[in-house]
């Protein structure tokens, strides 16, 4: 029987040859990811259910990356970090990345890739909805709650329904004004915020395989914005090179069978697509940037798991070099590594950091920061009636702080172009 790549990964994790769409199976988990917001309650449930002295099923497979509320004076947020540290100590977790030490990494989904935890063919569960980001590596990654995570901590397994798959093929050569963010916002506009609920979103086509791993992660990151269980891109030479440079662990590569059955198939020619935004207050509220150009903004924000990777800043630098921003512009690198690359990577002979500084941007420390609002002292948090253009992934009411603010989700090119003019601006005006 023909299977999709997601089915094959499920079958491997369920010790089966074949799994059928719609059946619920118990999956053996390769990695469980958690962070400072959902880790403490997960550990609480684990102790309550398995006993105060219980040990996690496999300390090597538990990855704890604090990233949400790091640079804040909020005492409850600090207490959550203390609880992570305490649990990691009790359980001798080797993969705990403590705040305030040189082990601190930053945004978990990007750090997972940097640290070599993303392995093709494996199953990753995380207490964060954007765990689907890792699907860029030809693996299964999805978000879960604290109770499910506590169950995995004790048993190393979890039930999951085998999803139907939807296939999105992008043909053509990526134009320089278009990014992975534009592709996923295009899809969201077409299928809506529940268009892929409980399904796998498989991305394919020459344009997808021309993208860097950073960009592929952006594409998979927002599968959850369509309700998708996971996003997935099959492994190619780019993936293999990236993974092998970071880990020596073995892995298995799966591809969808040519006659695999899909719920639906969508085809796009990237050469015919325009830069787009998601208007307030929903990620599927798509408009071409040109159709809303001129809308005044009060802030620009370039950061997060979906929009704060090296590739995002390289793109932004193309537009910001030699120009000044007209509105408050926050540059929030996802991780410590990305932050250091701002100093080492250059565009036309100038470091990205210096380009952003000269443009008048504020460069923040690496964390999730204002992508999800956060405590009141979070850098970049929206206030009052702010109108923000942001490379983040969600713009429901109140997402970046103020519930009276409006957020336009956009590519780093569009966010940079709009920062320069103070109004929504198509990046082609500058490229």
């Amino acid at each position, binding site marked *: 029987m023909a299977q999709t790549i997601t089915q094959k990964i499920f079958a491997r*994790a369920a*010790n089966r040859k074949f799994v059928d769409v719609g059946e*619920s199976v*118990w999956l*053996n*988990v390769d990695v469980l990811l958690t962070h400072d*917001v*959902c880790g*403490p*309650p997960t550990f*609480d449930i684990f102790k309550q*259910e398995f006993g105060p002295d219980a040990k996690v*099923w496999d300390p090597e497979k538990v990855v704890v990356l604090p990233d*949400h*509320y790091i640079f804040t004076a*909020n005492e*409850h*947020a600090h*207490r*959550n970090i203390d609880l992570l540290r305490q649990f990691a100590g009790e359980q001798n977790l080797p993969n705990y990345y403590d705040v305030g030490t040189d082990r601190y990494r930053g945004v978990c989904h990007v750090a997972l890739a940097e640290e070599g935890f993303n392995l093709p063919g494996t199953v990753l569960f*995380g*207490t*964060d*909805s954007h*765990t689907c980001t890792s699907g860029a590596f030809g693996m299964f990654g999805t*978000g*879960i*709650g*604290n*109770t*499910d995570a506590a*169950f995995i901590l*004790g*048993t*190393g*397994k979890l039930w999951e329904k085998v999803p139907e798959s939807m296939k999105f093929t992008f043909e053509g050569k990526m134009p320089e004004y278009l990014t992975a963010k534009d592709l996923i916002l295009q899809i969201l506009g077409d299928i809506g*915020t*529940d268009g892929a*609920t*409980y399904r796998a979103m498989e991305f394919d086509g020459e344009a997808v395989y021309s993208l860097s791993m950073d960009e592929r992660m952006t594409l998979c990151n927002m599968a959850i914005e369509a*309700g998708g*269980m996971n996003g997935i891109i099959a492994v190619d030479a780019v993936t293999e090179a990236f993974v092998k440079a970071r880990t020596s662990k073995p892995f298995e590569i799966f591809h969808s069978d040519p006659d695999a059955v899909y719920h639906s198939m969508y085809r796009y020619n990237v050469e015919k697509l325009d830069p787009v935004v998601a208007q307030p207050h*929903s990620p599927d509220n798509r408009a071409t940037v040109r159709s809303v150009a001129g809308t005044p903004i009060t802030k620009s924000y370039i950061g997060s798991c979906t929009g704060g990777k090296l590739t995002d800043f390289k793109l932004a630098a193309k537009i910001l070099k030699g120009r000044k921003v007209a509105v408050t512009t926050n540059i929030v690198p996802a991780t410590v590594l990305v932050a250091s690359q701002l100093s080492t990577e250059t565009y036309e002979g100038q470091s990205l950091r210096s380009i952003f500084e000269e443009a008048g941007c504020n460069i923040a420390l690496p964390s999730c920061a204002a992508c*999800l*609002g*956060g*405590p*009141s002292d979070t850098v970049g948090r929206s206030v009052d009636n702010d109108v923000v253009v942001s490379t983040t992934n*969600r713009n*429901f*009411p*109140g*997402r970046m*702080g103020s*519930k009276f603010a409006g957020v336009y989700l956009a590519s780093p090119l569009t966010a940079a172009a709009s920062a320069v003019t103070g109004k929504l601006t198509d990046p082609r005006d500058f490229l």
Partner: protein
Amino acid sequence: MESIIQGKAYVLGKNIDTDQIIPAEHLVYSLSNPEEVKMYGKYALSGVPLEQGGLPEGGIPFVPEGGHTSPYSIIIAGPNFGCGSSREHAPFSLKVAGAKAIVAESYARIFYRNCVDGGFVIPYETAQQLNKLILTGDELSIDMQNNTITNLTQNVTYQLRPLGSVVDIVQSGGIFEYARKNDLMAKSQA
């Protein structure tokens, strides 16, 4: 487990995401300390823009100012309830505020799992747009045996979708209780 859930309706629109159910800034509180837990009740559904809460009129907060429990125990909503983040704090906050069940046209996957596996609130689905028929404050009764919801105020009964394969977990009160009953708590042998 009780087979009838009775209470007042709180009616919402579509795509009620987890930031509206419990805004991210409040996620710092303990989910086990009884005093701090009350904060989750206090802020349940506080991210819903005021005019969109308590439909059809709107302007009705789920939890009255200064309190931490809600007079409404059954939430009626449109499609895609609970979309957005994976935070289990969302169904938890609804439970703390006193919600017993949600009746929506559809749910986002993680929120649905969290409701069921955590045993917080029961997520029923309906094929009808009940949020256009039921008014906030109407007295409702859900019959869990027959999968129906009766609007006692309007004297009309609607069909609910059966809970399907998760009914055992719901009846057990969560994934741990279910797993203990079915001997599923052993460690993986991968």
